[in-house]
Structure formats: structure tokens, C-alpha cells
């Protein structure tokens, strides 16, 4: 894992001291709220419905056990014994008090963490594949480049007041597990004709009130020039992005209104000036950073596969967990494990302090001291020996973390919604809970197969509803919460935005509506191996519309 150098450490320390002083001045009345608000937001401190909310960055979703233990400590000491892992691979605490924030930030700084740039119109936490560095299908581990981008984008003086927030996601595998086509910039690892590895660059994707699929702006940018190329995009955006209307300020609108060809020309022109200058990334520097992400010293493991079918007979819950929650590893004898934060009836993405400690222990003991936060709001242990699976599983069972539902209908992405969020129109967590209860039966989930439900409590789309195979969006109409259902979204390389099929539903009617969609799919699929999203693509909207609204 990357370790802070003196520069990073000194900077975070200094910023913590600065903010402590600002908090003290706010509490003494020396600063008023108008002056203090931008300062607290720069340090990740929002005010939500019931209390403050602190958003802490987990760079590219990678953490070690010490860092996770610190999060557990914060949950226990300053919050209400839990934290909420988010789709941006960050964690949010919902109940901290203002006077405790300086102490929290000090605790974080001690383990090389902070909350800087988790708010505001700057470049936010760079996200990536939760299986980075371990996945069997990987072209390159994206994290060294992600770390270099983190350093470039942290406090970049030119890009601290962009027209709007800016999100970058990267995928090092051909299978896109980071939703890169729905980010302001998406980077996809690729090879050129000479077999060299570089980056395909996508721009102008996003969710929110105007969902857009990103467009490819360059088919290949070598590592060496990536920073210069991204700087060029950001400059074009900073210059031409709209500042007159916050709803039209994201780069997706600029790309959409200007056209990708023109944007590409503008970027190329800027790139011609910037290329070869100070932003050139020498191979030695890339190598130096890459060493921080060196693969662990793998052991030779005798057992290289698990007999899932056998385990399913001997111990069905364990068998299901093996079947769903393992990801193929590049090293024989190893797997990556998804620890589901989606228990039946739970709040998606929430983990208690105790669970965080347990996960930290598991990472330390079984996964080379490393863990990941996934954008699907689960935790991943990236490097686990197949022979250790029974022990890991036993511990997970003991702590309510052994749900074998990764990628299934109960593995729901869900934003905080109106139970916590000041911008929300409707609640989202209770719906997620209800849906997991409705589809709790493992046989039923197995029958349905891969199906992603994503729920947002307002059009900002923090819960990615546009790209759910089934998406649910909460709206408010005449004082009641209503839910619009979309079908056919896809966050992967087959990017698609879901279609709204008709009027919304009141909360009580949503679970049955979803069930009708599921039944329509099962009735019409070619075989049980044709997943929901593939069937939707083949069949089109009509049968699903009928399922929801009848054939009127």
C-alpha cells in the first residue's frame, strides 16, 4: 500500500491544525456560519437533517487494518457505533459533534487518512475496481496511477474552484467494475498496437438529473502523458464549463452541448502545450509508486480450487457464500472475498464498530493486511488463500457478515435518503430493507440470479438508480413519497441508462411491483443462465411495462 511521504504527512497534519483552529474560532463566535461553512465543507463536514455528517476519503477504496480500526474507533468514540460505506468508496459518519471533529481528524491523520476534498467543486476521491491488483482479468493494477492522480489532484491550485465537482474512476480490467462511463472522466486500461499498456479516456459521463454515458475522447494515452492529458481536459472544462447554472455545470453538459469532436480538438490543442512539460510522468517515478503496490509474497498453496457443489450439499449457506462472494484471483490458490454489508433487513453499506474491527482482524490475518471498499457498498479482502476460506467464513458468520448474496437481488446499492440526507425527497433505506426481506429466501435469490437494484432518495442519484438493472428513484408528490421504477440500466462496459416505464408507486406497492418485474423476467428468459439484464436487452421494455402496469 502507498505510504505517505513527508510532504503528505506534513500537509495533512497542518490542515488538521488549521481546521482545529477554525473550529475553535467558530465556537468562540469569531467566525460566523457564512465564513465557516466553506471551511468545514473543504474538510468533509456537512450538515445533514439530524446532525453533522463527516465524509472520510478512502483513496481508491484501499485501506489497511490499522486504518479500518481507526474508523471503528471513531464510530465507537465519537459517533453511534457504526459507519456508512458509500458508492464512492468513502465512509460517512452521521452523528459527530463539531467540537470532536478536530480530534477525529487527528486520529485519522495518525493513520494517513483525512476528509479533504470530499466535498466542494474540486476533484474528488478517485475510485477504482475493488479487486484491483488481484483480479484474474486485469490488464494492469490501476492503483499506482490512481495514487499519482491523487497526488496531482490534491489541492491542485488551478482546480480547486471548478464549475462543479469532478469525479474520476479507473478500471484496470476489461470488465468495468468501477462504472467509469458514469464519471466525469473514466479511464480504461488498454493496449496499443505495439502491445504497450496505456489508457482509454472517457469523458462527460454522469448520473444526477441529467444522466449521460461518457464518450471516448482518446483511444490511447500512455502513462507518461496521462497527467498532461487530464490536465488539458480539466483546463478546457475550467474555461468553458458553465458557472451560471449549477444544474448545467458538470462536464457532461459541456460535452453534450459542445459536442465531443470540438471538445477533443480543444483538449488536443491544450495538450500540445502541456505535453512534454512538468507533468510528464517518468517511468522511474511510476516504478517507484508501483513498488508500494507490489504484490504480496504469495505462498504456494496446494489447494487451488473449491468444490462449491460439494459444499452446497454439506453446508448450504457456506456453499452459497462460496458461489457468490468469491472473485477469481490472478494467483493460483488465492481468491478475493466480498464481505457483504447487505444483510436481510439491514441498511446497505452500514457496519458497526465491532464489525469494522473484525474485518480489520481478518484483513491482517488472512489478506496481507489489506482491504477494499467497493462502490457497491461492500468490503473486499483482496488476497485470501483458498485454504483459509473456512476460517474466514466462520468468523464472518459469528459477526453477521456472512451473507452470500454478492451481485444478487438483495445486494442493493442505496443512498441515505430522507432518513438522513438534507436534499432528499423520499426515504430509500426502508425500501431496501423491505426488498431484502421480500427476497430473503436463498432459493429465490438463486433462481433470480444476477440482478442489481439501486435506490436513490432524489434525482441527485447518489444511489446510482439510473444504472440499476432495476432502479428506484424517490420523489415527493403532494406530501407523499412516491417511487419511480426504471429498468435496463447497466453500469458496466455495456453502459445503459434505465428507462422509466410509467407512473410511480407508493412505498407499500414497490416490493410487489419489483416482484412482478422479476416474475416477468423468469417467465420469459431463454434459460436460467440468461441474466435479467440480457433478457431485458433481448425482449425490450414492453413485457416489463405490462408486468408493472398491465397491458392497458
Amino acid at each position: 500500500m502507498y505510504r505517505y511521504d513527508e510532504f503528505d504527512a506534513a500537509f495533512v497534519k497542518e490542515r488538521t491544525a488549521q481546521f482545529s483552529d477554525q473550529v475553535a474560532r467558530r465556537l468562540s463566535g469569531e467566525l460566523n456560519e457564512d465564513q465557516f461553512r466553506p471551511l468545514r465543507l473543504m474538510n468533509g463536514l456537512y450538515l445533514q437533517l439530524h446532525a453533522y455528517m463527516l465524509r472520510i476519503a478512502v483513496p481508491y477504496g484501499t485501506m489497511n487494518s490499522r486504518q479500518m480500526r481507526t474508523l471503528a474507533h471513531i464510530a465507537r468514540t465519537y459517533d453511534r457505533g457504526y459507519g456508512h460505506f458509500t458508492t464512492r468508496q468513502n465512509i460517512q459518519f452521521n452523528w459527530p459533534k463539531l467540537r470532536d471533529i478536530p480530534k477525529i481528524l487527528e486520529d485519522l491523520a495518525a493513520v494517513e487518512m483525512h476528509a479533504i476534498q470530499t466535498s466542494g467543486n474540486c476533484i474528488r476521491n478517485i475510485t477504482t475496481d475493488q479487486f484491483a491488483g488481484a483480479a484474474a482479468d486485469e490488464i494492469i493494477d490501476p492503483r499506482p496511477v490512481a495514487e499519482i492522480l491523487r497526488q496531482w489532484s490534491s489541492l491542485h491550485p488551478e482546480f480547486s474552484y471548478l464549475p462543479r465537482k469532478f469525479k474520476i474512476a479507473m478500471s484496470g480490467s476489461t470488465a468495468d467494475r468501477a462504472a467509469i462511463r458514469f464519471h466525469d472522466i473514466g479511464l480504461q486500461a488498454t493496449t496499443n498496437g505495439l502491445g504497450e499498456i496505456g489508457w482509454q479516456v472517457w469523458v462527460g459521463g454522469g448520473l444526477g438529473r441529467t444522466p449521460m454515458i461518457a464518450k471516448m475522447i482518446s483511444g490511447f494515452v500512455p502513462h507518461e502523458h496521462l497527467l498532461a492529458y487530464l490536465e488539458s481536459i480539466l483546463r478546457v472544462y475550467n474555461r468553458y464549463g458553465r458557472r451560471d447554472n449549477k444544474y448545467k455545470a458538470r462536464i457532461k453538459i459541456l460535452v453534450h452541448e459542445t459536442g465531443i469532436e470540438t471538445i477533443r480538438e480543444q483538449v488536443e490543442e491544450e495538450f500540445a502545450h502541456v505535453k512534454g512539460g512538468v507533468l510528464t510522468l517518468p517511468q522511474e517515478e511510476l516504478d517507484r509508486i508501483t513498488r508500494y503496490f507490489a504484490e504480496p509474497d504469495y505462498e504456494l498453496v496446494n489447494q487451488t480450487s473449491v468444490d462449491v457443489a460439494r459444499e452446497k450439499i454439506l453446508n448450504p449457506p457456506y456453499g452459497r457464500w462460496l458461489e457468490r462472494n468469491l472473485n477469481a484471483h490472478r494467483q493460483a490458490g488465492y481468491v478475493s472475498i466480498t464481505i457483504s454489508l447487505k444483510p436481510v433487513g439491514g441498511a446497505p453499506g452500514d457496519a458497526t464498530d465491532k464489525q469494522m474491527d473484525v474485518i480489520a482482524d481478518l484483513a491482517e490475518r488472512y489478506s496481507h493486511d489489506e482491504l477494499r471498499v467497493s462502490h457497491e457498498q461492500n468490503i473486499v479482502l483482496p488476497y485470501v488463500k483458498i485454504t483459509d476460506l473456512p476460517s474466514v467464513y466462520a468468523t464472518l458468520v459469528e459477526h453477521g457478515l456472512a451473507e452470500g448474496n454478492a451481485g444478487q437481488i438483495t445486494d442493493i446499492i442505496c443512498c441515505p435518503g430522507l432518513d438522513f440526507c438534507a436534499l432528499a425527497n423520499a426515504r430509500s433505506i426502508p425500501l431496501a430493507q423491505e426488498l431484502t426481506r421480500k427476497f430473503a429466501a436463498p432459493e429465490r435469490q438463486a433462481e433470480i440470479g444476477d440482478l442489481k437494484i439501486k435506490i436513490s432518495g432524489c434525482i441527485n442519484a447518489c444511489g446510482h438508480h439510473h444504472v440499476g438493472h432495476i432502479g428506484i428513484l424517490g420523489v415527493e408528490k403532494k406530501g407523499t413519497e412516491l417511487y419511480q421504477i426504471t429498468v435496463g440500466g447497466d453500469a458496466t462496459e455495456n453502459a445503459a441508462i434505465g428507462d422509466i416505464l410509467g407512473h410511480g408507486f407508493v412505498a407499500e406497492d414497490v416490493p410487489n411491483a419489483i416482484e412482478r418485474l422479476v416474475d416477468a423476467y423468469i417467465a420469459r428468459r431463454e434459460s436460467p443462465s440468461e441474466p435479467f439484464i440480457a433478457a431485458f436487452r433481448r425482449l425490450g421494455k414492453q413485457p416489463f411495462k405490462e408486468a408493472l402496469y398491465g397491458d392497458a
Partner: protein
Amino acid sequence: MEILTGNELMSGATVYLDRSGKWVEELQQARVFLKEESEAKDAALAVTKKGGRVISLEVETVTLRDGAIYPDRIRERIRAEGPTAPRFDRQHLDEDGHVSI
């Protein structure tokens, strides 16, 4: 009918302006401003803003149901009680979090 609400600076807790000019946790103690009391309402808002101890000030419309204050917006009803799922108690004021205008 309207009430004044906001969040107390230190705890972030939801508070309401009561009839004696104190900011309190309990929705049912909120002062209800009638239409013709808009001057008093504006004055209270101005003083509070100046005091700086209650932030994110909002005017919320309410009705009375069997004599109890019932906010029109769901958002306000949830703010008054705390999150419904997972169910948590609302945030409370610290010892030194009690403020008057």
C-alpha cells in the same frame, strides 16, 4: 401557520424556537406563528442569525392536529423524530448547547 427550526451549532441537533425565545428540542413546544405575526417571525430569524448558534434556519409550514403541531413536509416530521430506518434517536443538545435568542 409556521414554525422556526434549525440546527444547533455544536451538536447539529434539530431545534425549534419556543414561545419564550429559547431554542428547544421538542417540536411540540415550538412557537406557532400565525400569518399576521410575520414581523415577529422575521425579527426572531434576524436575531438568531446574528447570534450564530443556530444554523440552517428554516421556516416550516405546519397545521394543528388535535392541538398538536404537525409539519406539512415529511422531511420535517422525520427531522423531529430522528431517522426511521435504521431507527435512531434524534440528536440531542449538549449540556452547553441550550441557547436563547
